[in-house]
C-alpha cells in the first residue's frame, strides 16, 4: 500500500463516477457525450487494475488483494463525500492526486539513487 496506489484507486473511482450523468453534471456543468463517457469508464477501470497490480507487486497477491479492497473502500468514501459537498474538488483531485503521487515517487527514487 502506498500513496501512489491510493491515488490511482481514487482517480479510477472518480473517473467511473464522472462517467455517470448525475455526477458529470455536478462537476462539468453539462452532460458528456457517449465517447468521453466510454473513455472515462475505460480509464477508470484501467486505473483500478493498475492500482491492484502495483499493490500486489509490493505486498504479494494474498495480502495485496486485501489491501487493495481496503484502499477502494477508503477512496470510495472520500469520493462520495467530495462529490456531495465539493464536487469540483472531487474532479480536480482525480487529476492532481496521481500527479502528486508520481512526483513523490520520483523524489523518493532520486533520494535513494543519490545516497551512498
Amino acid at each position: 500500500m502506498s500513496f501512489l496506489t491510493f491515488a490511482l484507486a481514487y482517480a479510477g473511482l472518480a473517473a467511473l463516477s464522472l462517467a455517470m450523468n448525475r455526477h458529470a453534471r455536478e462537476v462539468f456543468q453539462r452532460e458528456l457525450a457517449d465517447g468521453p463517457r466510454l473513455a472515462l469508464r475505460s480509464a477508470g477501470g484501467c486505473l483500478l487494475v493498475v492500482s491492484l497490480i502495483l499493490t500486489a507487486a509490493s505486498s504479494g497477491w494474498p495480502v495485496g488483494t486485501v489491501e487493495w479492497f481496503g484502499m477502494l473502500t477508503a477512496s470510495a468514501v472520500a469520493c462520495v463525500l467530495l462529490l456531495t459537498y465539493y464536487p469540483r474538488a472531487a474532479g480536480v483531485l482525480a487529476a492532481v492526486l496521481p500527479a502528486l503521487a508520481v512526483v513523490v515517487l520520483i523524489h523518493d527514487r532520486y533520494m535513494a539513487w543519490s545516497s551512498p
Partner: protein
Amino acid sequence: MAWLHAWAGWPAGWILYAVFISGTLSYFRPEISHWMRPELATAREHPDSVAMAMRILQERAPDSSRWVINLPNEREPTLRVGWMAATEPGKADRLIGRFDGVVLDPSTGKELQPRQTRGGDFFQRFHYELGLGQVWGRWLVGVCAMAMLIAILSGVIAHKQLFRNFFTFRPGKGQRSWLDAHHAVGVLALPYHLLITYTGLITMMFMYMPAAVETAYRYDPGGFLIEAFPNPPHAQATGRSARLTAIEPLLQQAERQWNGAAPATIVIEYPGDAGARVQMQRSAHGKLTHTGQFIIFDGVSGEMLSIWGEESGAMQAHGVLYGLHMARFSSASLRWMFALCGVLGTVMVATGLVLWSVKRMPQRAEGERAMLSQRVVEILNNGTITGLPIAVAVYFWANRLLPVTLAERPAWEVRCFFAAWALMYVAALLQNARTAWPRHFFAGALLFALLPLVNGLTTSAHLGITLMQGPAIYAGFDLSMLGIAALLAIAAWNTSRERPERKEAAGDTLPSGTPMLEERS
C-alpha cells in the same frame, strides 16, 4: 426482498451494533490493553530480550517443566516471561500446576507492575459473547450474524439501482438522506461487510453447524480435531539432565525459515532435561492464515526437528478465512482501513435502525403521542446507538479513575461499562426523542474529548509528552479519542438540525410503513 431485508436487519440490529462497535475496537486490542496499563508506558523494545528472559527464567524457575517467553513487538513493547510453577517442591508437571509470570521492560530489564484490568480483551470477548457467557452469548451473536448475512444478500437483491446510485448521497432531505446514508455505507464497503459477516460465522462454525463433522466422525468422535488441527507433540521428560542449548542461534534459524519474519513466542519444555524441546511460534504479521506456524527444535542439540503450519487445502482455506476476520496479519495502515470499514459497518447498522423510526414519524400528526411500539423502538435505538459509545468512554474513564489497589478491579471496570449503558436507556426513556439524540451524542463527544485530559491528570504519559517522545501507542490512542469525539460531535450537530418536512415528489419518498411481503415492486 426489501421486506426480508427490513425484518432480518431490524431485530438483530441492536445486537449487531454492539458487535460492530466492539469488533472495530478489537482491531486495536493490544493498543487498548497497553494504554489501559499506564505502568507499562515506559517500556521500549530492545534486541536483547531473549537473553534477559533466559536470565530471569534460570533465576526464578530452574526446575520448571515449561517456560514461555512472549517477545516484545511494536504493538506490545513489553517482554512477558512465564513459567509453570511447581506445586510440590521439585515436581512441576505440565498438566497440573500454577502458571506464574512477570512483565518486563525490555530496555531496562526492570520488572513492571501493571494495574489489574481486562484491557482490550474485554471488547474482544464482548464482541462474540456480549457478556452473556459461552453458550447464550455465542449463540445470540451467531443468530444475529446469520441475520446480518441475510440482510446483506437481500439488501443487494432488493437494491435494483445498486451501481447507478453508488456515488449518490443527498444530505438534508430527511428520510431520503437516511436512506442514502444507509445505502452509501452499505454499498461502499460491501465486500468488507460480506467478508466480515461470513468469516465471523466461520470462527464459530463448529458450534453453529456441527452436522458435517458429526456425520463424518460419528464412529470416531475425537478423530476430527486430531486430523484437522494437529498440534505439535509435547516433549517427554527423560529424567536425565542436560544443558539447554543457546536460544539466539535458533531464533536466527527460525527467521531464515520464515523469510525474515520474527518469532513472537518461545516455549521451552523441560529445560535442563535431555528431552527438552524449544518451540517457536511465528508472529501473525504478514501471513494471512490464522493457523499457528511453529518450528520445533531439540532443546539440547539445537537441531530443527519439525515445521508445523497448515497442511491440506481445506485447512489453508479455513486458516485464511479465520485470519481475514482477525486481521492480525495486517500492517498498521491496513489495520486502519479495516477499522474504517468497521466504522462504516457500525454506521450502516445505526442508519438502518434509525430508518425504522424515521419511516413512521410522518404518520403521526403534530402533537399526537407516539404509539407504544414506536416509543419502545425509539428508546432502544437511542440507548443502543448513543449509549454504547458512552459506555466505552466510561470504561476508559473508569480505568484511569478507579484506585489501583481496588479488589476485583477488572470486574469493576466492566460493571461501569454496563451500568453506563443501562443508564442511557433510562435517559432515553425520560426524554423527548428529538432532544435526546443530540444531547446524548454531545455527552459522548464530551466524554471522549476529555479522556486525554483525564489521562494527563492521572498518569505521566499524557499527550504533552507522548506527542514528542512517545510511546506512539499512547499518543495514537489519545488522538483517536479526540477523533471519536469529533465524529460524535458531528452526529450531535446533525441530529439537532431541523429536518425540512416538505412534500416530496411521488416516487422520491419511501412508502410509509414496511412493504408487504407479497408486493413485487
